[in-house]
């Protein structure tokens, strides 16, 4: 089976995740308004569609990878599973102890997928570098990795501002702003790493 082009994969993921964020901010809030149960359910679950598509893309990419890449994917997914399992267990115990509200527990659940992706990418990048590869290369646009992360983070921050000022939704704002901050921090870390490498070739 032919290997999947990185460009194709990254473009499709970028489009799907952009759609995910737009649906979260523009469509999902409609599920909290009065209306028929089936319609509210549809509005509530529609952001799941692009996520399922991305998971399908990842599965395809892994199946079409070579043996070395599959080992790196395995390491990444293993670490991500362990980290996310522990974090959700912690959140569950805290919620059961009523140390935070059910609504915040629901928000924490929404972080399972992003946390899984972040941990998987970081672990896979680290493992690839240990084996002599590049953990994070230029990607589709030719921008350095840190620039892409900062761009995405700033875009999400603008979306969070929309969620706050237009939608008046604190939960959405905190979710999107949290993602934006996390992504900008990762971008900052990548910039520092690039700078340190340029000083010590």
């Amino acid at each position, binding site marked *: 089976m032919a290997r999947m082009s990185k460009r194709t994969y990254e473009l499709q993921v970028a489009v799907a995740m952009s759609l995910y964020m737009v649906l979260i901010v523009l469509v999902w809030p409609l599920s909290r308004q009065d209306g028929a149960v089936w319609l509210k359910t549809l509005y509530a679950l529609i952001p799941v569609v692009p996520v399922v598509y991305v998971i399908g893309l990842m599965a395809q990419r892994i199946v079409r990878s*070579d*043996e*070395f890449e599959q080992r790196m994917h395995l390491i990444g997914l293993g670490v991500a599973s362990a980290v996310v399992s522990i974090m959700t267990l912690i959140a569950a115990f805290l919620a059961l102890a009523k140390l935070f509200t059910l609504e915040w527990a629901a928000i924490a659940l929404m972080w399972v997928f992003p946390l899984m992706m972040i941990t998987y990418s970081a672990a896979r990048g680290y493992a*690839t570098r240990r084996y*002599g590869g590049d953990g994070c290369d230029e990607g589709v646009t030719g921008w350095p990795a840190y620039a892409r992360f900062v761009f995405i983070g700033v875009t999400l921050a603008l979306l969070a501002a929309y969620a706050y000022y237009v939608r008046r939704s604190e939960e959405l704002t905190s979710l999107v702003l949290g993602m934006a901050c996390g992504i900008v921090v990762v971008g900052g870390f990548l910039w520092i790493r690039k700078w340190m490498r340029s000083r010590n070739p």
Partner: protein
Amino acid sequence: MDAQPQPMNNHVRELREQRGWSQGELAERLDVSRQTINAIETSKYDPSLPLAFRIAKLFRQHIEEIFEP
């Protein structure tokens, strides 16, 4: 518990350079990623048997002439 075995040494880089191929070109010929070639050449990763046979066939050598413990 036994210690994890060390990856084997190999002559893939020499054979590639003799033919004037880049890592990317060799990766394309073997239908693997450039990172895989780099990992093999730096002895950080041992290829599977099918891949080792494909490498040997590409370079027209026996496996034992390319990979050694």
